[in-house]
């Protein structure tokens, strides 16, 4: 098991950090939040053209660079640190993974190069109004039509659903949960933006009324693909959470060194020191969990489901706690709209709720491994 980065991976991380520091600092973040589009197309293009980030983990044959998941972890950690507003997660993590998890070479050839190059923005629409992420009943239906399939139903909490030009929809056919590609300009598709708690990640609700769609892979193939995609999404969001949590800690430490009350920096107060020490403990622990999941994604696929739930459960709580403490340490100023602390707090809670909260993932972990096999030497997680 390898939980550290190579020098090459660290160099990638530093490049991403430099790009984001230049293009996506706090001022730019506020502009993007208030923009109609919700992301900065210039930054998106820089990410693709200068650094090839969208294609990082996509195989070379589909226009990507074929790197592994640990590279992706490093990139996502940096994006999480600056709360990057972009359809990266929807397009690269969710959609590319979904396409790569279903056996349909033609669809891959058609759709992945656009995602890898950043020309296409894709998303996956699977959750419905019941808000369930795992093993949820699929009420959206697909019926075969004249050369194409037609979809009816609704989807919600769709990441970047308004900006995506390609929407991968999970719908039920007689053969089971199946994946369909929908062009965002299709007739019968009504997209409504949702006002979100997390101001840095856009969501939409979709209504599908006889919307034409292309079947990806076989009927019934979406169930397993969605499960794998969710595992990788949990791993990926855990990496983002680590980056955000680290930034909260950094903000707190910096503020504690400079804010003076009672004639001394508040960082001289032992209680502030201990809060920061506990935050460090949680951030470093979260980092271990996320890197472990990243390692499992690449090197031990059998261990991935449990590792992903472990990471999602731990990192979600750690980020929420650290983001709340960051507000507390800042006092009144940390509670204002103008200060960034609340953006991290909201991101923390929203990313806990996305794809299932900590309690749900603790249960998933036990279900997946069987609680008996958690014992010493009993579990596949021992890898």
């Amino acid at each position, binding site marked *: 098991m390898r939980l550290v980065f190579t020098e090459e991976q660290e160099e990638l991380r530093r490049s991403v950090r430099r790009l984001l520091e230049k293009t996506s600092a706090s001022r730019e973040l506020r502009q993007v939040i208030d923009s109609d589009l919700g992301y900065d197309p210039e930054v998106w293009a820089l990410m693709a053209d200068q650094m090839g980030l969208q294609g990082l983990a996509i195989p070379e044959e589909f226009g990507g660079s074929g790197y592994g998941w640990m590279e992706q972890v490093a990139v996502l950690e940096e994006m999480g640190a600056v709360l990057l507003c972009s359809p990266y997660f929807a397009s690269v993590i969710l959609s590319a993974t979904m396409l790569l998890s279903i056996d349909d070479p033609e669809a891959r050839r058609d759709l992945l190069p656009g995602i890898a190059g950043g020309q296409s923005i894709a998303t996956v629409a699977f959750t419905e109004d019941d808000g369930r992420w795992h093993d949820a009943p699929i009420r959206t239906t697909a019926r075969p039509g004249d050369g194409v399939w037609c979809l009816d139903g609704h989807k919600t909490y769709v990441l970047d659903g308004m900006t995506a030009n390609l929407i991968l929809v999970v719908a039920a056919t007689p053969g089971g949960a199946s994946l369909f590609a929908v062009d965002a300009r299709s007739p019968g598709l009504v997209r409504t933006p949702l006002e979100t708690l997390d101001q840095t990640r856009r969501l939409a609700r979709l209504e599908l009324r006889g919307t034409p769609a292309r079947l990806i892979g076989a009927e019934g193939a979406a169930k397993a693909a969605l499960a794998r995609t969710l595992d990788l999404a949990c791993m990926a969001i855990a990496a983002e959470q680590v980056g955000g949590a680290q930034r909260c800690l950094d903000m707190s430490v910096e503020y504690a060194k400079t804010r*003076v009350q*009672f*004639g001394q920096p508040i960082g001289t107060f032992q209680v502030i020191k201990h809060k920061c020490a506990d935050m460090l403990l949680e951030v470093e622990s979260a980092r271990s969990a996320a890197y472990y999941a990243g390692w499992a994604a690449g090197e031990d696929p059998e261990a991935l489901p449990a590792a992903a739930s472990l990471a999602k459960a731990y990192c979600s709580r750690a980020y929420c706690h650290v983001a709340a403490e960051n507000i507390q340490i800042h*006092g009144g100023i940390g*509670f*204002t709209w103008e200060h960034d602390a609340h953006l991290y707090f909201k991101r923390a*809670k929203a990313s806990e*709720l996305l794809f299932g*909260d900590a*309690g749900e993932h603790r249960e998933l972990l036990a279900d997946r491994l069987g609680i008996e096999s958690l014992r010493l030497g009993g579990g596949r997680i021992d890898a």
Partner: protein
Amino acid sequence: MGNSVHPDTDESAIVDAAIAKLLQAHPPARTETQELLGAVFDSGLAWIHFPVGIGGLGLSTVLHQYVYSSLTAAGVPDYISETPIGYGMAGPTIAEHGTEAQIAHHLRRIFTGEFVWCQLFSEPGAGSDLASLSTRAVPTGDGWLVNGQKVWTTLGHLAQYGLLVARTDPDALKHQGLTYFLLDMTLPGVEVRPLRQMSGDAEFNEVYLSDVLVPDSARIGGVGEGWGVAMTTLANERLVLGATTPRHGGAIDEALALWSAREDKTSAAARVLRDRLLDLWIRDDVAWLTGARAAQRRESGPGPEGSVSKIARSSINQQTYELCADLRGAASLIYSAAAALDGTAQPGYMFLRSRAQSIEGGSSEVLRDVVAHRVLGLPPSHRPDKGIPWNEVPRS
């Protein structure tokens, strides 16, 4: 903390008689609000622990909660919730430290809500360390020239008056160079700007004071004695704050409602949410009981036990509103900051708003220090600003 006090039966009799007489003479359903509240004041039921003639009956505070509950149950408008700063802070401060003229001018109007008040204590550089505040009041021929910036001013945009603490002697020790004023908010140079908070609304304000000329008649307490007066204001704040939450109300009621509305009550994850709910329900009820017990024990005025309650309450509320978010699950991803700014009620608002509860009105960290020193008698920590004139103490 062993000794206890319980309501004197004489006090109960006096209060019951006054209430009965009031309600008979001024049936709430058929009395105009201002008149009704004026009558409550005149019958001494406004602040029963004030002297007779200025809204009180000269009793202890033990029956404060009882009077409030009885009157509001009988249809008297909720005079605490509607004028929290006037009732809870301005009234007791003026009653204790005001001149006869100030008492006559303000107290009845505070109670009837004619004068809305705000509090001008906190500053960007003086949060936990309130006594380090920098707003200056310089004596002039006609009074005082005030310059500075205040923040976290609830009701600042509606208030006619503000409770202002300003520095009149920068060469004195920080607690000793302060003076307290009853500031007319309509004076030239007072500018109120809304301050938006993380929940999206602008409950608070910033108040900029630029060359505001304040007459000396607005001063309350002696020059340099502002800190003592401010302590009266803050000590009374808590007497009032605790009074308004009914048992099993607020956060825990919202959580229970969400639990009731929930479809999945039996999955393993739901069971765990349920246990969090029960644990918080117990802690909430125990906090309520502690408040009730403190009220029964309290002979005269608020004590430092109020700090204990506030620490507990803010933590319970934050955890309960986070539980509410978890009970709502994915639906909690939706929130409208724009609606919050418009004042529209929505789920999730209190999840955000409650984060301030452990900061405002004394952070939990400062309150734990207070409890350790004043209740437990633990020795003071080193303070580099101690014994040093205000203008020589480092500030950020």
